[in-house]
């Protein structure tokens, strides 16, 4: 049975008179990689800031390993490692000095652990250079190192592959997967790069205008069944649209003269039969599995900020 690492319970955030987050609830289990995606301004960063205690909740609660962020902040924060937005460090200090600085803020982090984390993210060579000289990719690695120092149960990474080269991205991806699988860490990744999230995550939450509009399992086939897109080349198109509506209660759209419907694969033979019986010529039927990106745009529609 999956053990919940982080629970969001009807989390709301008002800034001024405006409700920025309109009641988000979801659970992330241990060992799970959760992708948090949405357009800019949707409330991703606000939600993450509430998860780590940088912002107060207007309503609702967040529980981390059972500890409320509101009433047991210290216990809750002990279980969380995070990068919030850019991995900003003290530029005038070396990478090592930065890590030691954060290590001193949590009891029980040994020097050995600091060195372990440094080699984990592959920063042994430049660790004594000033962070001001680091590239964005190096800072990103240092940010991850900083988040892992105290062996958190929940790891929150905001745009973790930002600024990394393809090799670096693959390395981080492998590392995130192994953290989740071997160390049973719950990992939350926010991103706007859908393909990346698709490759890294087990489950995806889509946020739009302060609402969680969908959560989906990336590898779940039952989901694929639902979102099959069926394209039919038929004449006359108008009659076909009406027929599908009256006979099967299916809404269809016309795109470039072709009929587009969303339905199960299993329903196709029955649909063709209906069309043929009513003297409609069917030239071509094709099924496209909607990619995550299509789902994403289906769900969020236009990238508008209310």
């Amino acid at each position, binding site marked *: 049975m999956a053990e919940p690492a982080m629970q969001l319970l009807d989390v709301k955030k008002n800034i001024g008179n405006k409700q920025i987050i309109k009641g988000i609830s979801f659970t992330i289990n241990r060992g799970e990689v959760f992708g948090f995606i949405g357009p800019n301004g949707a409330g991703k960063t606000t939600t993450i800031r509430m998860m780590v*205690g940088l912002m107060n909740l207007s309503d609702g609660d967040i529980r981390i390993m059972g500890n409320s962020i509101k009433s047991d902040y*210290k216990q809750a*924060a002990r279980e969380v490692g995070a990068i919030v937005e850019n991995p900003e460090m003290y530029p005038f200090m070396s990478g090592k000095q930065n890590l030691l600085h954060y290590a001193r803020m949590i009891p029980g982090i040994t020097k050995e652990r600091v060195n372990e984390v440094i080699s984990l993210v592959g920063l042994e060579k430049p660790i004594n250079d000033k962070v001001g000289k680091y590239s964005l990719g190096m800072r990103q690695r240092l940010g991850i190192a900083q988040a892992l120092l105290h062996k958190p149960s929940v790891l929150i990474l905001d745009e973790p592959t930002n600024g990394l080269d393809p090799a670096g991205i693959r390395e981080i991806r492998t590392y995130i997967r192994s953290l989740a699988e071997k160390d049973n860490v719950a990992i939350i990744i926010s991103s706007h790069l859908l393909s990346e999230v698709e490759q890294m995550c087990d489950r995806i939450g889509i946020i739009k205008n302060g609402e969680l509009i969908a959560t989906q399992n990336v590898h779940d086939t039952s989901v694929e069944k639902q979102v099959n897109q069926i394209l039919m080349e038929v004449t006359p198109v108008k009659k076909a649209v009406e027929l599908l509506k009256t006979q099967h209660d299916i809404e269809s759209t016309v795109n470039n003269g072709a009929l587009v419907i969303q339905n199960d694969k299993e329903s196709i033979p029955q649909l063709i039969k209906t069309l043929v019986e009513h003297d409609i010529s069917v030239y071509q039927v094709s099924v496209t599995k909607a990619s995550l990106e299509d789902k994403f745009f289906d769900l969020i529609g236009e990238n508008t900020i209310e």
Partner: protein
Amino acid sequence: MSNFFKLLYNEQFKIYIRKSTWVMYLLLAGIIITLAVVTNSYGDLNEKYQQDNWRDVLQEENNEINEHLQENEQSGQLTKNNFYLENDIQPRAYDAWQFVMENVFLLSLVTLFTIIVAAGIIANEFRWGTIKLLLIRPLSRTKILLSKYISVLIFAFLTLLFVLLISLIVGALFFGVNGDASFVQNQLGSYAHVSIYGEILKGYGYQLVTLLMMATFAFMISSAFRQSSLAIGIAIFLMFAGNSIVAFFADHSWAKFILFANTNLEQYEFGEPIIEGMSVGFSITVLAVYYIIFLVVTWLFFTKRDVAGQ
């Protein structure tokens, strides 16, 4: 407790690893050495009184002054010399302690540097973006704030100590150290024989009031507006304009409640306070109220406000 000590260590580390902090110390050392050189070359070091016939030297000086003195004119030097002669005190040779005492004015520079550090210690974390990584640790914000405030005080204390020690060392190298601790000081026209250590302690102590109040004020602005330049600007402006502000509003009955009417506690030692009806007790109460308000406002802004995006 060791936990809190580590936070203090972190804050001190962040202050002293920066080059700008070392520039402050180099500047202070440079000024002190320059002062010593100038005093050594052009100052009156009371050398002429250091022979056995110092009484004759003083008397001769008095005669000379009397000759040039117009009728009804006063001479401070004359009164001072007479005080020496009447009480049979040999004028003290200028030495390191006197140099330390004269350098009390450098505390306004120490105050300035402390304001800069206090203004930056919160605001810079916001500017660098590191505040996010700092505040997601399993520590209360109050504790982090306290470590920052105490770090400012430690910085002020160390800088003060630096001025004292460097003045003493440089003074000793240039002027030597005088075993005689007594010192004749002008106290509103009349002269008194006082201990130089006591005078140093008092002089530095009075300056500390302004230092503490202005550093705390800058710390508050830094916490409220999260911008160091604003905090430095306002604090320094008020520090220099403080007396003018008091003078400007002096006619109003509430003028005595202005912070800067009360920061100079030295006013009670000799003579009248700048505004009638004020006493030491009154000033200390006003200062305490301001101090508490500053700290409460700082705390409220730091602990209650969201850390939102830039």
